[in-house]
């Protein structure tokens, strides 16, 4: 039975810091197991969110050794030996206590996005290829690791101007649904702030569901915005057609 040193952030919005905990570790353990062990035997008041422990619910997001990770999916044997394991809350969001942050901004943004609305009189048939395209986006478990890492939200604090990668994925799932009848391009261009994304692809790097956020969601949506608002040829073409 060996032990490892964990440094877990404790505190609230006013004050706090990393606290050392020595934890007994076993083969196959994940970071969440260690956090639970600390809660059980050393710090019964450690605040943390978790639920499914199978990387499906998106509750246990944190920053492990500085990287946004799901704690239930981060095996101890993939972290460098001989170094303490640092566990911190998601820094892009206001802190509630210890590892629990206030992610409600995301839920507010969600409400700004018009939901699935079928085209009137549509026939309910779809091709598997279309389903596959949006199933990739639907895999999103709303862990908000992508939101946490996006420099626009995290470093520039532009939550009032950019929805963030998760919501680009959500809008893509709606826009690319073959039977949806709404157009969210205007939303993307203005309130959604898609122009603020400069395609650094950090979001895709941290996505636990391996969604190709930038390539499959953001870039195609950017192209729609460009076609509608910026590219002179399609704009001129549309004007000509509507003048006739």
């Amino acid at each position, binding site marked *: 039975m060996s032990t490892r040193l964990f440094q877990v952030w404790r505190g*609230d919005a006013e004050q706090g810091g990393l606290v050392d905990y020595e934890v007994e570790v076993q083969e*196959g353990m994940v970071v969440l197991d260690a956090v639970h062990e600390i*809660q*059980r035997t050393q710090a*019964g*008041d450690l*605040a*943390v969110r*978790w*639920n*499914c*422990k*199978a*990387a*499906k*619910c*998106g*509750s246990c997001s944190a920053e492990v050794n500085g990287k946004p990770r799901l704690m239930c*999916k981060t*095996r101890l044997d993939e972290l460098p030996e001989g170094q303490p394991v640092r566990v911190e809350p998601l820094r892009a969001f206001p802190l*509630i*206590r*210890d590892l*629990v942050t206030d992610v409600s901004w995301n*839920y507010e943004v*969600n*409400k700004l996005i018009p*939901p*699935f609305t*079928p085209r009137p009189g549509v026939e*309910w*048939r*779809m*091709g*598997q290829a279309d*389903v*596959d395209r*949006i*199933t990739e986006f*639907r*895999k999103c*478990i*709303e862990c908000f690791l992508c939101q946490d890492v996006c420099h626009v939200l995290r470093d520039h604090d532009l939550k009032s101007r950019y929805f963030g990668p998760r919501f680009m994925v959500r809008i893509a799932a*709606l826009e690319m*649904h073959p039977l*949806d009848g709404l157009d969210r391009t205007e939303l993307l261009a203005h309130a959604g702030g898609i122009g603020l994304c400069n395609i650094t692809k950090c979001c895709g790097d941290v996505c636990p569901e391996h969604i190709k956020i930038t390539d499959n969601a953001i870039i195609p949506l950017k192209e729609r915005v460009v076609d509608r608002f910026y590219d002179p040829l399609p704009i001129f073409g549309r004007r000509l057609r509507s003048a006739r």
Partner: protein
Amino acid sequence: MERQHDVLVIGAGMAGMRAAIEAHELGADVALVSKLHPTRSHSGAAEGGINAALGNASEDSPESHAFDTVKGSDYLGDQDAIEILCTEAPADVYQLERWGAVFSRTEDGRIAQRPFGAAGAPRTAYAADITGHVLIQVLYEQVCRRDLLVYEEYFAWQLVEHDGRCQGVICWDLLNGGLKAIGAKTVILATGGPGRIYLGTTNAYACSGDGIAMALHAGVALEDMEMQQFHPTTLSPTGVLITEGCRGEGAYLLNKDGERFLERYAPHAMELASRDVISRAEQSEIDEGRAIDGNVLLDLRHLGAERILERLHGTRELSLVFAGVDPIYEPIPVRPGAHYHMGGIDTDVWGATSLPGLYAAGECACVSVHGANRLGGNALMETVTYGRRAGAAAAEFALSHPTVEVPEAAERDAERELKTLLDRTSGERPWKIRDELGASMLENFGVFRREDAMEKQVEIIEGLRERYRSVVVEDKGDVFNSDLTQAIELGNMLDIAACMVTAGIWRKESRGAHARPYDYPERDDENFLVHSLARWTDGGVALDTTPVRFTKWEPTERTY
């Protein structure tokens, strides 16, 4: 009292959200209470699919679906409830599609259906291998579209009963602290299953059966509590679920000799026999020494990398992360794990309980559509169909009954009880009691049951409940005190476990998931073709029975 509503739904998983949507459609003022953000609920972990007789993959009918469900239930399911489920299921599935659910499709663009355990025809509609996840998002989108109020991260603790009616609920506000009483003309419990009673379970940590315990403490009877389904393919020791969909795609189950052992237990259906049959087969192989480290092997290799990556990518990922195994090259070690509870709060076919104003739907309820064993794909269907029905019934009751009153005495009593718990400084920490409960239930009330082990378990639970009386909550704070809520959850689980084992001892036969191969190996229709009913009294668990409701099908021998 904080606020009051017409319909208050406790639990915001699929059943809860579907109920809330329906009640709102009918004009009721609805709110939901959830100890988690709604989309974190365990419905989202369901993978395999949702059953309905759409007839897209082959000839099918609601009657055929109903028969498979009745047989699957080992004839303990109430046939009127089952017929309702199977008849209304197709319309409910199409409704989900219209709300944006992206199901996998057939060649000609209709909703695809695949074979699943113990089904006579392929009728399981699916969204890749994330069906529950897609559906919970779809329902949440509908909840948001209707601007339904969600008391998020509120831990529902006690039902308020007054004047012979359920009048609301008292909650602990997990984010800010403090007890909050919410009044409601009707309450719908949709809190899911109690799987966390077991050490090896597929269930999330929040699955502590809170609603079942709340109903129990309010005097409502719990039905068929002994019926606990063990899913045959779970990882050890985490309990992570490997979907039945693998077997639907053609995976094999092997013992340590590389034998497809189901040949000896279910020669016709093989890997697609019903879950209780397979779990028992696996447990026998394990008990008789033909397993490896307590596991049998789920072999996907012959399906080929392309099919695995296309249809079972989630499974492969889980296997890599939680078992350290790549199923393209190696079989996955699996064993039975506590998965789904067929029993629960006794309701009628509209979700109504014996307490006026109190309803229940989903896994926490027992209508009963699953009897002694549930078919894969029927749970998601039940949450939608019976969630809708409970929502409709609750709305109708609320809109035709006068307003509510949460008596001050109820709030004061709760405050006092809470203070006693929080003031305690010496005693035992919850985790030890919880671990002992989990391990002992797995050992003495697992796949195979015997009289002496169950009797021992009743005593063990009594001992744990005694120790629980002096449980200590270390965190005395207000903000995000999960130490407190976990302690309350433990109390719920202990009471539910007592009901489960007591009912198990009473049922002196083997039926469905309740397997007693050593003392009562046969099914006994003459004496036990009845549901068990458990009630909480000062003296302990009191048992009663209620007859099974028959419509079309006489019980016959159940083989696959």
